[in-house]
């Protein structure tokens, strides 16, 4: 006979709650006037074009950079990797905002240097921004695959007379195709759900049009569009689940020693990417800070961000513990965990739409901070679950057994052994949720109570009103948050991704 693991009831309830937003959208969309019209076709085309172009761009940048960071021996290898992965931690709307403001006639570059530049907007502008902020997905997944390959194959190909470039092309790349695909799909998911970039670049994708509909009180039309967007997200997620990670017997990794001019050429090729993605936003914000100072900014915006995000982080960790432990106790638990991951695939604007409707139905929640915190938790719970689960999986099951055999009840064993040993994961997960919530824009726009301005929403208002200079303080604070997020990724559970030491740990 088998007993129902003790975390299952909690995990089941949380999993069911995670399903509510999608259910709500179906109810809402029922009243929509149009299922699909010519306008929808345009939106669909824009969305898919942006997605495909971004994936192509991210692959073209990400794969060479992966080869570079995995194989090329340069001083400060780890630093290069961190700099190249850094855009991942920045919200793309920061980049969209600053690139939009910097380029074009009357842009900051022309104003400051007198050099005319083409404007960055529309499909091409959105593609540029999304590529700059999604290539690290491809870089990291491809690099991980590359590191698992044994150098012997390349060496064999070269002794058989193939040039290095051809050996990389014919022997290495075919074996990391799944890694590239995994990164490309992540980039696609990110692009689909991103709101800030298409909105700022004035490209009518699903996320932007949903926001427009919401502002025009077309909530059911917004719900219908949300479901259409979710369908595409679902397809991408399905593809992602079909990408099987290939594992090879790990061996010694390939190392390439470039000459001075080769190293110089590589760095020169990399520089524009980092300049556009990181240096330019920082410069623009600094220029604005010098010019406009802190006018219009109130400390309460930052406090509101911190307060709401902190509540979300605490709630997410409390909910993540039973889900993560259910996930390691059995198959049914893994299904429940998978269900809570749904929120991660639901774009913020879609989550916002669903919860706005819930707020309208439940006056208790309407226009409350609680509703916003719920949205954060539903969206970012998987980050906390993932962190806690990673530490819980690392726990040797015989530790729990040893505690039980020594006479501890399951409760005591959990409190004295499991909890202290997974504390690290809980803190790391909470911090990730906190930082993501700090930077979240679309759901905050839709769900923030009246006069509840956060850093992200204030940045948005400033953009809408055209007072770009006032974005300096919130912009720099958000970049700082992103930096902290990156530092956390580097020190925490994901350390392995950034590990450049020779003996790759697991």
């Amino acid at each position: 006979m088998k007993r129902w693991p003790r975390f299952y009831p909690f995990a089941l309830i949380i999993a069911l709650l995670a399903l509510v937003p999608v259910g709500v959208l179906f109810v809402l969309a029922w009243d929509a006037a149009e299922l699909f019209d010519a306008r929808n076709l345009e939106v669909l085309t824009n969305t898919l074009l942006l997605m495909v172009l971004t994936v192509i761009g991210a692959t073209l940048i990400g794969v060479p950079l992966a080869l570079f960071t995995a194989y090329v021996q340069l001083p400060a290898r780890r630093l290069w990797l961190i700099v190249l992965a850094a855009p991942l931690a920045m919200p793309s709307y920061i980049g969209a905002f600053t690139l939009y403001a910097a380029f074009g006639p009357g842009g900051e570059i022309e104003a400051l240097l007198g050099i005319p530049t083409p404007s960055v907007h529309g499909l091409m502008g959105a593609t540029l921004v999304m590529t700059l902020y999604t290539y690290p997905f491809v870089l990291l997944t491809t690099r991980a695959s590359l590191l698992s390959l044994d150098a012997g194959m390349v060496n064999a190909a070269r002794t058989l007379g193939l040039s290095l470039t051809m050996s990389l092309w014919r022997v290495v790349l075919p074996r990391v195709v799944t890694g590239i695909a995994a990164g490309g799909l992540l980039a696609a998911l990110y692009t689909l759900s991103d709101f800030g970039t298409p909105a700022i670049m004035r490209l009518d994708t699903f996320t932007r049009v949903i926001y427009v509909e919401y502002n025009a009180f077309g909530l059911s039309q917004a719900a219908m569009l949300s479901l259409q967007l979710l369908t595409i997200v679902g397809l991408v997620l399905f593809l992602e689940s079909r990408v099987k990670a290939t594992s090879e017997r790990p061996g010694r990794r390939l190392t390439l020693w470039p000459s001075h001019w080769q190293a110089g050429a590589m760095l020169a090729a990399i520089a524009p990417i980092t300049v556009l993605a990181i240096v330019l936003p920082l410069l623009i914000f600094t220029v604005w800070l010098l010019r406009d100072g802190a006018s219009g900014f109130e400390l309460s915006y930052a406090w509101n961000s911190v307060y709401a995000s902190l509540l979300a982080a605490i709630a997410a960790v409390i909910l993540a513990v039973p889900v993560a432990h259910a996930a390691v106790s059995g198959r049914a638990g893994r299904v429940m965990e998978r269900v809570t991951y749904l929120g991660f695939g639901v774009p913020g604007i879609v989550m916002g739409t669903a919860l706005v409707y819930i707020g309208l139905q439940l006056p208790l929640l309407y226009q409350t901070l609680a509703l916003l915190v719920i949205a954060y938790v539903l969206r970012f719970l998987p980050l906390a679950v993932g962190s806690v689960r990673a530490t819980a999986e690392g726990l040797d099951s015989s530790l729990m057994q040893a505690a039980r055999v020594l006479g501890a009840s399951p409760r005591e064993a959990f409190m004295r052994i499991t909890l202290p040993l997974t504390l690290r994961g809980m803190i790391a997960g909470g911090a990730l949720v906190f930082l993501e919530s700090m930077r979240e824009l679309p759901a905050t726009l839709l769900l923030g109570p009246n006069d509840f301005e956060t850093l992200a929403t204030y940045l948005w208002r400033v953009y809408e009103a055209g007072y770009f200079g006032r974005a300096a303080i919130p912009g720099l604070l958000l970049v700082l948050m992103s930096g902290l997020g990156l530092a956390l990724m580097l020190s925490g559970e994901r350390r392995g991704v950034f590990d450049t030491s020779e003996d790759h740990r697991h």
Partner: protein
Amino acid sequence: MLNVSHLSVSYGTTRVVNDFNLALAKNEVLMLVGPTGCGKSTILQALAGLLPICEGEIQLGAWRATPSLIVPPEKRNVGMVFQDFALFPHLTVEQNVAFRLTDKTPADHWLALLGLEQLRHAKPDTLSGGQKQRVALARTLAHEPAFILLDEPLSNLDAALKDSLRWEIRDALKTAGVSAIWVTHDQEEALSVGDRVGVLNGGQLEQLDTPEACFCRPASRFVARFLGEASFLPGQLEQGRVSTTLGAAPAAPVDGASGEVDVLVRPDDLSLVRADNDTNGTVSWARYEGGTQLYAVNLDDGTPVKVRVSHENRVEPGERVRLAVITTHPLAVFARTQSSV
């Protein structure tokens, strides 16, 4: 003490332990030995209450566990030493050993007795394998369980350490006056340390007896082969003596074997000399073992046997030799089967 009757355990539809019976005596160290996958670790998990059982009964003192009557591990008063030690990594040696003790005296006692005094405040991941094993043992003994289960406690240690730690553990168990079931796959460990040995095969207990009995009078050919080098010679059993092509010896029939039988000979039951006439076999290979030399010989009737002799006696493969039974103790004889070679 501990009584186990008709215990069966299944994983899904596969039965891994079948009709296991055992009565553990007071202060007894019982070795459970068998090849990988024979169910020996499963039995320990079931006894500790870490696995559900599907048939039978486990009883100790006040508690009795059956498939429907579940007694959780913490209510069983059982101690367990895990194969990977299972020391709590966030606690010091002292905190591990005194995990659930309100009175720390037993912890101090065992820390001192097992030479862990210096390591009191060390964290487990700074310890060597042998030290970890001692801490695990101290933790188990300090909690004063009614009986102790040891799950291959030495399998993660290197060979040199195994030998000394084996005796250290046995001495500690005897000092504590606690009975124990010790699982191992190492037949030498089983024979040397145990008061009794249980040999498992495919989830079934094939024999449960003293080490001498298991080795000299094995209940089955499997037990005979598992506990040491075993060769089987064809022979005739008459009036308590068995005669073979290599000579005669007193016989101990297994399962009432009679008439045409197979005789179990261990490598040291035979003598071997190189000879030019009256030979009865050819050496197929020789293995130098230091103090002794092990030969595999093909007898002229086709039977393969192994012989262990003093290392002074050197014979090369391919040379003709004369073998003879030299033992005076009774040899186990089994009924002849078709596939007895």
